[in-house]
């Protein structure tokens, strides 16, 4: 009997958790398959589910969607560039600090951690001014570099943690065999670090794809903004087409969610371990 009440208690808890988690997401889905008229009926399932909203998006047939393909391309370009650049910079830095024991490596690690602990919205303001000074505003590179700045500290930290766990004897053996640092990096370090590298690359890619604030500050031209900023424009008018906004939002949210779940094994292990060190 006690066992039964315990199981029932667990099930009872599951229902509010499921509702809390899924309501806003189901709401997006519901709107995106509703026509304009039935979107506000408050029904749990539309009378005539339709994919017409997605057709409108693909053909760019609404004022807010005239540059949809350019904007999703911008999002993709920036996410991939930021992911690749973060990965390259952070891997090299972690290797130099953890394996080559470069002088001053500890200081650089502390500088990176310091950056990691600046609240993102506060760094955005001086960053915006600096990008203006570098004349990078409205260039995709400004957002790429900003995202690298935000993602690299955590990337270096996680990679350094993972790298410190590799046995030091590996380096010793490589040195004895006369390997150069680059050979050690390419032939020993990179293969052993692959799981962490996948996690970090994905982390930086998703961070850049999902970013709203920096994109909104740094990019303003219709042709250079990312899909995230374009979605923000929908809300500027009172009569914005909710069903189109939600459908576009779904298109925007699916790729990162899919990537996240595909790499979940890496993400959950690699990222939660580094996030907080008890």
């Amino acid at each position, binding site marked *: 009997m006690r066992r039964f009440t315990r199981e029932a208690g*667990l099930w009872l*808890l*599951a229902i509010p*958790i499921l509702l*809390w988690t899924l309501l*806003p*997401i189901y*709401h997006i889905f519901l*709107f995106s398959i509703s026509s304009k008229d039935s979107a*506000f009926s*408050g029904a749990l399932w539309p009378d005539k589910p339709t994919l017409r909203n997605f057709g409108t998006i693909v053909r760019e047939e609404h004022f807010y969607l005239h540059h949809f393909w350019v904007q999703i391309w911008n999002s993709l370009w920036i996410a991939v560039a930021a992911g690749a650049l973060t990965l*390259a*910079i952070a891997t*090299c*830095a972690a290797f*130099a*600090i953890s394996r080559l024991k*470069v*002088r001053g490596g500890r200081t*650089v690690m502390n*500088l*990176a951690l*310091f950056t990691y*602990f*600046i*609240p*993102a*919205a*506060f*760094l*955005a*303001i*001086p*960053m*915006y*001014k*600096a990008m203006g000074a570098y004349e990078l505003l409205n260039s995709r590179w400004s957002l790429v570099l900003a995202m690298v700045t935000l993602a690299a500290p955590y990337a270096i930290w996680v990679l350094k943690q993972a790298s410190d766990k590799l046995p030091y004897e590996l380096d010793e053996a490589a*040195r004895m065999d006369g390997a*150069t*640092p680059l050979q050690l990096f390419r032939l020993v370090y990179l293969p052993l670090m692959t799981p962490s590298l996948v996690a970090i690359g994905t982390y930086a890619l998703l961070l850049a*794809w*999902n970013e*709203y*604030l920096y994109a909104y*500050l740094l990019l303003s031209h219709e042709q250079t903004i990312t899909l995230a900023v374009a979605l*923000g424009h*929908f*809300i500027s008018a009172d009569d914005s087409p909710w069903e189109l906004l*939600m459908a576009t*939002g779904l298109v*925007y949210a699916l790729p990162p*969610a899919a990537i*996240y*779940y595909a790499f*979940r094994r890496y993400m959950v292990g690699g990222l*939660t371990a580094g*996030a*907080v*060190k*008890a």
Partner: protein
Amino acid sequence: MIAVPGIALPRSRFAFKSSWQTWGAIMIAPYLLVFLAFVLYPVSYGLWLARDPASYARLFADPIFARTVVNTVVFLLIAVNLKFLLALWLSGFFVHERIWIRWLSIVFLLPWAVPSIPTIFSIRFMFNPEWGVINSVIFRLTAHDGPNWLNDPRIGLGLAMLTHIWKSLPFWTLILIAGRLAIPREQYEAASVDGASAWQKFRYVSWPSLRTLYLTSTILSMIWTLGDFNSVYLLTGGGPADLTHVLATLGIRYIRLDQVDLAMATIVCAMPLVLPLMWFMMKNLSRGDRQ
């Protein structure tokens, strides 16, 4: 953690060692450049812009400012602590070994896995007083109009906090689950043998192991919450009448109004909140790193 302080290398290896140092310097240089160009220079430049006492006088004279500070403190204290109590409690739920709980935990991660904009706009629409699904349901059930949700500054800020919790709860629950799974199972078994109640197991087995993680996570989450622009801006836009701003959105608001000195002054005013938290995290992490 492996720490090999200064491996003693034979003298003949000196050239060898210096080549490793050279490569080390080359490989760390890109990040150092990023740091100098996009952290050090902007922050110094920003602080230089914020040097004029007159901008602080103007900032304090802005009636929004005091309200914003109160909102920020309320947001930090209530949202973060509520989130962590929930995360602590939910982590206890998710560590039960059932196949359906494993599936539920995968679904539970969704808010964290999807980008903020669509979901926050979705919440915004749900609470629209005229057409939103919440008020439609309220009207159908009670035949009365529901509250004016986002047009009421208190409810608006409350909903922004809930949105923030909705978005970041999965991540912190995951962290605490990892913390709970690291506790040896024998300790719980021993407690069961001694006839400990569920509360006693939590109080004397789980909590002592989780305490440090819980505290560190709370501090880190407070830092991130201070920088959370989306939950407030995308939900209420700081409105109605700029009454739901937090420091993060107020700074950006000044930037959009082209008042950079006020924006920077806002950040400087946030420093008494941010710096102790940053100091705590830096101390904590570098101590852990040295072990």
